[in-house]
């Protein structure tokens, strides 16, 4: 499994430098139980946070993370150190979560079509006038509102939600998302745009400074 460059902040354990990480990897390769435990403990919460929004289910997220660690232990020899080990684990976890999604029967989801922008017969946008737009800081000030927005993200259909999370929130490139999902880069762009548009419509009351 390929690993890519990542910032030091994403190392196996925040604050760990490259030398510590090399040492950890060497110990993992030697089958050191304490190193395995350290790797699991320092990354498990982070990886659950990666898997949960993709799968929308805590138990499934735990399964994906467990399988990701097992895969990582088995494939530690292929870790080349071109990225941080945390980035490498994150990539494996996303892969595992996506495999789970593919194997699951899709839950009833709303259609994205109802959430896309509207145009008139002249191909002009229909957009209610904006008297004000709340700033992101105003919107996210309150914890309940943040939870409400998170719930709206989780409401997006799977194909779109996954792209939005990986591309916008996990800062992966279009190419990386395309490779992981085995779709074209153009398909990633289309899904990403639809996901953002749909989310805009869902959170529009907040953006307009109204109660959701």
């Amino acid at each position: 499994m390929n690993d890519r460059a990542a910032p030091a902040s994403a190392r196996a354990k925040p604050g760990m430098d490259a030398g510590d990480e090399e040492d950890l990897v060497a110990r993992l390769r030697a089958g050191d139980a304490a190193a395995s435990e350290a790797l699991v403990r320092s990354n498990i919460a982070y990886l659950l946070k990666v898997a949960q929004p993709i799968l929308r289910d805590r138990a499934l997220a735990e399964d994906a993370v467990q399988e990701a660690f097992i895969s990582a232990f088995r494939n530690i020899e292929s870790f080349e150190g071109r990225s941080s080990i945390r980035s490498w684990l994150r990539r494996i976890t996303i892969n595992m979560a996506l495999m789970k999604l593919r194997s699951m029967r899709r839950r009833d989801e709303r259609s994205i079509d109802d959430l896309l922008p509207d145009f008139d017969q002249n191909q002009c946008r229909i957009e209610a006038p904006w008297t004000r737009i709340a700033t992101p800081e105003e919107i996210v000030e309150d914890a309940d509102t943040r939870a409400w927005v998170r719930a709206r993200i989780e409401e997006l259909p799977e194909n779109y939600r996954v792209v939005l999370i990986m591309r916008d929130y996990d800062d992966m490139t279009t190419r990386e998302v395309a490779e992981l999902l085995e779709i074209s880069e153009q398909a990633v762009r289309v899904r990403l745009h639809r996901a953002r548009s749909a989310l805009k419509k869902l959170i529009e009351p907040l953006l307009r400074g109204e109660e959701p």
Partner: protein
Amino acid sequence: MTSSYWEQLRGLLKGMMFKHMPYMISCVEFEDFISSYFEGSLPRAQLRIFELHLKICKECREYLRAYEETIAVGKIVFNDPDAPLPDDVPEDLVKAILDARTK
């Protein structure tokens, strides 16, 4: 005459302008450029056309601003440290992983 009449007329004129004037695109075509615009991958010629539409079309301008805010809100919320997932280590899961490791 009602405001709805004027709105329809305005829409018609705007639609005709986008359709017939050089370097103009409709709002539907503008929509197709948005993702590449934010990615920074629009070729220069298309970028000019995109920006020209943006200057002329108030609806697309407002839409794009709200769209941009949506991206920002999503990023903040998604990386929210108060998110419901606990940061504490689930011991049963740690044990299951380490047990599986030794098998």
